[in-house]
């Protein structure tokens, strides 16, 4: 075997294990009966295989050789320190989503084996998006994530699920097409697809070439903005979440957002000279994204749509770290992503528990949860308060860092918009808490979530509270990563 490939594989075992696990899960998923026999041997074997693959990937990632910045696979990807937190987030997102899928009653008759397999492959795509250092690789990774996501959104045997999947597909295909056009334009202008070469040739480009590069960058941003639900390419989000199984909506609200932001960092790193000209556009869109997401969330009555608009608002906060364009901003963004991972998955796990119990996704289904299941309601409150940014939770600390980085970089307007938005968002998060504690329950009886949900809720709750109280170790690790960044 070629030595470059052998050396590259050494740093790439986590992804290799995960793709093997995903493929094997698909094969095993068919075993032991017809599709539809969800709790049959097939689904269980598929889950077991993917858990093993995840474990192997985690071990490989843990033992990964001291992260080098040298590019792998002939310069197509880099497994540098910056990619590391995103790779962990991808593995974590797959693991939590597996728990949520296993716990979802609505997926009881769905072919879960295939769902696990697709999930594993999406995980590989997410990791690749965070590692890509070549436009071709970035595009292929993006499509792997997108195509499998379209399918997972349509996994419910309902009309609205198919409709959501189709809408997502059509929006996604259009965004991909526009992005590809931008990439081809950039290739024509720079004669290269590799990020480092693009940086070299874009640097010192003059008009009219620089204008064309600007256009290419804006077109490419369309595809990335679609992936992270940035206004004005956010319209698919509430529809796709509403039709998708809750577990899949949870995954979409965390996994692709983190990987999309990582890819955004990488692409803009390669186009550094263009940044000053497009910064005002991104800044404006960031403020619009958080404001629109939070304002529309105020009037939602379906909990999945509410969380979809809340996601758009949260993406707006995350983008602050990107817009301020400093090490401090990137650090804050990564920390808030980790916070967002735990609090958002936690909130969605509560939704899974409630939907399992009532079969309804209306906000009304949360009524009286405090009486029916005190622990669940308490944890749910914890996640919502963390999303709203109440101290001492991790969400507060992340927001504090984000707004602080904006002020440090003289973007006071950005910080102000973020603070105002947090105040707006508090209203709809607190409204849900009010429903849980101060309104009579609709149904009687104790709500006891299955063990998979209890594990998820416990881990997410412990992390949101624990890391919120003691964030220093995490912050130090992220600081080391960002300062080691050699991009």
């Amino acid at each position, binding site marked *: 075997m070629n030595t470059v490939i052998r050396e590259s594989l050494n740093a790439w075992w986590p992804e290799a294990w995960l793709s093997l696990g995903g493929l094997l899960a698909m094969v095993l998923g068919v075993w032991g009966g017809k599709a539809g026999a969800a709790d049959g041997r097939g689904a269980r074997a598929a889950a077991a295989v993917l858990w093993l693959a995840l474990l192997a990937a985690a071990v490989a990632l843990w033992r990964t050789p001291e992260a080098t910045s040298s590019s792998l696979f*002939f310069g197509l990807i880099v497994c540098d320190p910056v990619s590391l937190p995103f790779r962990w987030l991808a593995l974590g997102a797959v693991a939590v989503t597996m728990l949520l899928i296993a716990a979802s009653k609505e997926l009881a008759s769905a072919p879960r084996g295939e769902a696990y397999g*697709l999930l594993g*492959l999406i995980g590989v795509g997410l990791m690749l998006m965070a590692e890509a250092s070549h436009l071709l690789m970035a595009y292929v990774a993006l499509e*792997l994530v997108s195509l499998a996501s379209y*399918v997972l959104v349509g996994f419910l045997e309902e009309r609205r699920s198919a409709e959501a999947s189709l809408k997502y597909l059509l929006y996604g295909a259009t965004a991909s097409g526009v992005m590809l056009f931008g990439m081809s334009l950039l290739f024509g*202008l720079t004669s290269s697809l590799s990020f480092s070469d693009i940086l070299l040739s874009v640097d010192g480009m003059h008009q009219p070439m620089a204008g064309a590069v600007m*256009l290419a960058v804006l077109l490419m941003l369309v595809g990335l903005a679609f992936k992270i639900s940035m206004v004005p390419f956010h319209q698919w989000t509430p529809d796709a979440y509403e039709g998708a199984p809750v577990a899949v909506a949870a995954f979409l609200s965390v996994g692709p957002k983190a990987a999309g932001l990582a890819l955004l960092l990488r692409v803009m790193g390669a186009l550094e000279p263009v940044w000053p000209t497009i910064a005002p556009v991104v800044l404006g869109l960031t403020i619009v994204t958080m404001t629109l997401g939070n304002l529309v969330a105020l009037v939602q009555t379906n909990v999945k749509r509410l969380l979809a608009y809340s996601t758009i608002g949260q993406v707006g906060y995350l983008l602050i770290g990107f817009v301020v364009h400093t090490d401090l901003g990137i650090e804050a963004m990564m920390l808030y992503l980790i916070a967002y991972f735990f609090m958002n998955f936690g909130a969605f796990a509560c939704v899974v528990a409630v939907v399992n119990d009532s079969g309804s996704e209306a906000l009304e289904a949360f009524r009286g949860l405090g009486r029916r299941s005190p622990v669940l309601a308490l944890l749910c409150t914890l996640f919502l308060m963390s999303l709203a940014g109440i101290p001492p939770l991790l969400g507060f600390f992340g927001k504090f860092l984000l707004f602080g980085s904006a002020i440090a970089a003289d973007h006071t307007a950005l910080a102000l918009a973020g603070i105002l938005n947090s105040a707006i968002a508090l209203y709809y998060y607190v409204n849900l808490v009010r429903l849980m504690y101060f309104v009579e329950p609709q149904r009687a009886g104790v709500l006891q979530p299955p063990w998979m949900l209890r594990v998820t809720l416990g881990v997410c709750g412990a992390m949101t509270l624990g890391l919120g109280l003691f964030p220093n170790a995490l912050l130090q690790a992220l600081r080391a990563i960002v300062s080691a960044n050699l991009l």
Partner: protein
Amino acid sequence: MSFTVFALFAALVLVSAIWVVTLRNLFRAALSLGLALLGVAAIFLLLEAEFLAFVQILVYVGAILTLVIFAIMLTAKLQTAVDVPSRRQPVAAALACTALFAVLVAATWGLSWSPYPAGDAVNLSALGRELVETLVLPFEVISLVFVAAVVGAIAIAARR
């Protein structure tokens, strides 16, 4: 001479592409799509990218278009449907497209494109070697994309 030929094929692509979006009969729209794809293949040939032209015909005209036509024929409703897509915002859509086109033309007009150092890029064996050496990772990941698409499509379709 070569410009005349190019203009002919470009006109063919443009006209058939307009048919694809304006024809009200889906079957005819699909056939126009085939025409547009063939025109693109011809332009590739003009640019001396024989392999690309061959693949374009084999994959797009041969496989994808056949699939599209099969899908239309198998769904009997679509086959005879005439007034298919809702056309609520034709003016707005046309305006947006024209504006985008104008911006693209304005930004790319009068640029001096540096020709890509081609060398023997069209050489088939070199291309094949690229796929298993420098481009082996995207090549393998694309196979994951295909598996995900096919298995996912079957998983959804098998239950309905």
